[in-house]
């Protein structure tokens, strides 16, 4: 056990520089760890703190997993990487995953969810606050094109005509909001308010989740094939990741600084930003039933919300049995 742990640490350190393929000598005698690849949904930030922690502390190694971690980006469609077999498991937005299953027959199963409540919300400045959907009438709202139908659904759920809101594309940059070029933007509420505060303004926000658009985010998705052939590894991954997240949330300010020269090096973001993010996401990730849990009424709420935007999912797209095995 000790040996595997130190090997994991070794790999973790090496991976900080490049994708390490160097095997330390001892690995021949150690129990062969199964290689397991996960594809994250974005670049390295606090959104993935639980996994970084699990890797650094050797939690995955203890589960017999040789985890390789790939960060994401705008061109990386997470689901595609599990179709091509480049990853065993990925984190997705449930709307794309469920749409792909129902419309293209994609062989996916959702086996857990990182966020019980989707962190996306409407962010605005306190000086020009938008605190509820009704406040959006007559305003300019920047939305990433992919999320437009989610916003339209939220507007509809709150009885607002979408023609009354001027929706423009959003390119992940809060500058137009700070400069007043737009009145509000759709973004991670766990992240952007910090950036705005750094620019000397104060932000306010509300979650789409709290106004009827009740969906998960960073759903843990695998192919049916992987579910069949790698069940043990998947349960191991869930267990190790849950440990990582729990440890991370004991004090969300502790871990981000430790990664300044490894996971977070050169990302272009600051450690203070990651600490803010980590604190802000805690209530969205934690669940009374344990991190990743998929409660029946939450699944139903998620499916109902997606139904509002014409995505017709069903309960059998979720597999909650692995969570029971943790």
């Amino acid at each position, binding site marked *: 056990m000790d040996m595997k742990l130190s090997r994991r640490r070794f790999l973790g350190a090496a991976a900080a520089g490049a*994708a390490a393929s160097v095997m330390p000598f001892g690995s021949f005698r150690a129990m062969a760890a199964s290689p397991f690849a996960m594809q994250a949904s974005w*670049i*390295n930030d606090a959104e993935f703190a639980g996994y970084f922690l699990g890797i650094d502390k050797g939690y995955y190694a203890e589960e017999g997993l040789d985890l390789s971690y*790939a*960060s*994401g*980006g*705008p*061109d*990386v*469609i997470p*689901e*595609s*990487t599990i*179709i*091509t077999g*480049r990853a065993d498991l990925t984190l997705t937005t449930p709307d*794309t995953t469920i*749409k*792909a299953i129902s419309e*293209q027959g*994609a062989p996916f199963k959702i086996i857990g969810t990182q966020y019980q409540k989707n962190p996306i919300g409407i962010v605005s400045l306190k000086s020009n606050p938008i605190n509820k959907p009704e406040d959006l009438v007559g305003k300019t709202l920047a939305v*990433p*094109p*992919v*999320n*437009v139908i989610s916003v339209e659904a939220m507007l509809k759920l709150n009885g607002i005509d979408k023609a009354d809101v001027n*929706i*423009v*594309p959003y*390119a*992940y*940059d*809060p*500058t*137009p909001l*700070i*400069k007043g*070029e737009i009145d509000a933007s759709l*973004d991670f509420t766990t*992240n*952007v308010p910090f*950036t*705005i505060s*750094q*620019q000397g303004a104060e932000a306010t926000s509300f979650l789409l989740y709290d106004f009827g658009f009740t969906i998960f985010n960073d759903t843990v998705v695998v192919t049916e094939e992987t579910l069949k052939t790698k069940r043990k590894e998947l349960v191991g991954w869930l267990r190790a990741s849950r440990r990582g997240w729990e440890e991370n949330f004991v004090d969300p300010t502790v871990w981000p600084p430790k990664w300044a020269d490894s996971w977070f*090096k*050169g*990302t*272009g*973001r600051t450690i203070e930003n990651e600490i803010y993010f980590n604190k802000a996401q805690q209530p969205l990730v934690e669940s009374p039933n344990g991190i990743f849990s998929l409660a029946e009424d939450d699944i139903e709420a998620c499916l109902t919300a997606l139904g509002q935007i014409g995505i017709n999912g069903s309960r059998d797209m979720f597999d909650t049995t692995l969570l029971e095995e943790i």
Partner: protein
Amino acid sequence: MAGSKQWAVQLRNIAILLLVWEVVGRLDLIADGALPGISEILIGLWNDRSDYPLHVWETLKASGLGFVIGNLLGVVAGVFFVLIPVSLRVFRGLNIAIFALPPIAIAPILSLTLSGLTPRVVLAALGCYFVTMTATVIGLSQSDSRAADLIRVYGGGNWLIMRMVQCRSALPSILSGLRVAAPNAVLGAILAEFGGGGRWGLGAYLLGSLGRAEPERLWGIGVVATLIAGLAYGVFAVMSHRFVGASRAVTMNMSVPEKAGDGSSTPLSSLLAGAMAVLLPFLFWWAFIRLLEVPAMISKTPIGVVEYLFLSPAAQSAQERLIAALWETLPITGIGLLCGLSFAFLLAISSRLFPGFLRAFMPVALVTQTMPLVALTPLLVLLLGRGTSLTLWVTISVTFFPAFVILAQGISMVPRATRELAMAYGASARQELRIITIPASMPYLFAATRLTVPRALLGVMIAEWLATGKGLGNLLNQSRGYMDYGMIWTVAALSVILAVVFYQLVVVVERRVLQRMGMSTAE
């Protein structure tokens, strides 16, 4: 003496420009601080100094590798096409298709199907291949036919002509191709880094910095990218400058080129070549998917696209969305292209009248090219808003530079004796331009037009993707978000087909005009 004085003027101009920039930036005069002062950018660079080396190294690796591979392929292909003219016709469709591939459409496909550095290298190489191949063919086919005749008279064949005449005369043209290819390679690599999800590279750094509301950082990354591209550009500019002096004809070739189309070709064989030209890109497309064994859900073969667009249950809605998007994209593309070309032509011509201006303007032109569009567009939004003018400016800025380089090159190749002849008969500088320089630069104007068509489309699509939320660019982005692979492939294929059709139109006009003027086509 004159040289050092010119340098002093040059330095003074740059100093004035930098000073104005600094003042304007410091006072937040432009779009409320979207343009920071130079000192602010430098301070930012200094603060981030520990981040840059790894990112720069990664970008250098990918773009350098892509540059070498793309240009080697370009030169080899260019030589091959000139030696065996019919091959140029067979490969024409493929060449244009490679050139017209919108990088933003294929980047996600490359990130999926290839791993590690490869998507970046491929995108960088794709940015180089066509430019260099075209420059090689132009250079080789514009060689002095009298020198070739001489070798033939002495019993030399095509190969000897290639070695002794064409290669030498092509060198300046190839070097000017490499000059354009260098920033292309850097931009290609950065675009792939931006989307591809790796940890290192300036593109990855840019992505992480985009949400930070720190224009200093975005400009800093732009400045570093510009430096890399600018250095590469400079190396080839110096080399080109040296070689042009030695290889320019001293007198003018007065012989009329052979009629276009090789005399030996029968209608049947030229029909065959034409059919091959159309089929080859589709064959490569199909082979790419088959060889990489990408699952059918993600990859669409040509047949798959036809099915998606006409036979699938989603066909109706797909067609409607596509037509609506085209209607938004095409008009602005045409206008942007026209503006970019006219601007380049005017500047290239006036660079003959005011040579100092060319040198002063070049750095500015280069900046607009090497500043990654994904970084520049959000900043431009602050300056210009999200309307049509933004799309127009982005389009002009991507079309202008390559057109300008080709035109300036063409104009500098006009033999001095011809110009002096006009001068000797008392022509003014303007008359000389009208009689000699402008007509002589016609092949280059046509080449520039063909070269910029796909870039105009790309510029419009990037602006649509990042700012205006309209047209093909937005459709592509939305389809990516919804895993609508059919639409992703359809948009990519359609934009290539559009570019190819327009290219062909230019070629037809070009052939007629140049034949009447007694010049050869610069394929």
